[in-house]
């Protein structure tokens, strides 16, 4: 902690006073005290000396440029991802539309096949019906021929 000679109430205040972090009244109080207390004045001097000597790391231009480049490349990757996400609903909508069109073309073909066959049957059935009258007439005609034959007999 602070040296024994440092006034008990001012020890921690000296750090904040050095940084100018005291309010106006507190700052005034410390400034007044320092004028009359050599121990505290010396303490403040030592604190200021050590803080002034504290190391500060300054990156080189190369380090900074490399780091900036790395960040911007990462951001580009994020932007591509964002665009892909924004277009995803459009992709899904497009895929759904294509699927719907494909289904609308293929399914009716499958459905229509059954009725056509029925129509063929129906038509053939109708032809049978049509022909049936002829067949019926043919029977009559045959019978008439038989009658003729009988007459001849």
């Amino acid at each position, binding site marked *: 902690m602070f040296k024994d000679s440092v006034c008990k109430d001012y020890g921690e205040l000296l750090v904040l006073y050095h940084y100018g972090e005291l309010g106006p009244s507190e700052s005034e109080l410390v400034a007044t005290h320092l004028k009359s207390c050599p121990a505290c004045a010396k303490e403040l001097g030592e*604190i200021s000396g050590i803080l002034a000597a504290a190391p500060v790391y300054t990156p080189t231009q190369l380090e900074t440029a490399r780091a900036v480049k790395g960040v911007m490349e990462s951001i580009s990757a994020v932007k591509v991802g964002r665009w892909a996400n924004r277009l995803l609903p459009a992709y899904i909508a497009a895929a759904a539309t294509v699927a719907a069109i494909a289904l609308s073309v293929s399914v009716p073909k499958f459905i229509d096949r059954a009725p056509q066959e029925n129509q063929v049957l129906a038509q053939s059935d109708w032809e049978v019906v049509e022909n049936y009258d002829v067949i019926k007439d043919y029977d009559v005609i045959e019978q008439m021929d038989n009658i003729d034959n009988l007459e001849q007999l």
Partner: protein
Amino acid sequence: MEIDEKALIEAAKYGDAEAFGVLVKRYMPKALSFVRQMTGSAEDAEDLVQEAFLKAYRGLSGFKGESSFYTWFFRVLSNICLDHLRKGVFLKKVFFIPSVSDEDDEESGQLEQAPDPNTSWSRPDERLNQKELRAALSRALKILPERQRAVFLLKNNEGMKITEIAAVLGISEGAVKSHLVRAITSLRKHMKGYGRHV
């Protein structure tokens, strides 16, 4: 906040990467400096700073402009940095894996050893020159608890106000003052062990 910075942030929010790039270039040196001194590793510093800027870019919509971008970004940066350091401490304790700062700096831990009697540091009346003083302070800084180290660096090196540091670290102003005073007391105590009467 500067007007141009406000405009840059608004543009970046709408996906203007170049606008964000201006902010990156502006704050990169300070960010690298802070993280380098927090972690003691150049490689970690670059990785962590990159992670912080990327996180900031993604989270720009959450920046309301109530504080400066600098303070807001440093909050993101310091959280990432402190998490990284805590993870290193955890690994070291549980799995006996040395933390990266120990690997990068061969001199770390020397502060714990007794000074070499042949060096000038052992003679109490010998004053250290500035270079030696800076080196000794650098070592003393590394063994500070992470929170004290962060407060000291933000105050002494970045020149932030106590209120700004409180916002960055998410602690009270009273806690910031307490950490700052303890940090400086510890530094002076370690410097005393090397014969420097401070």
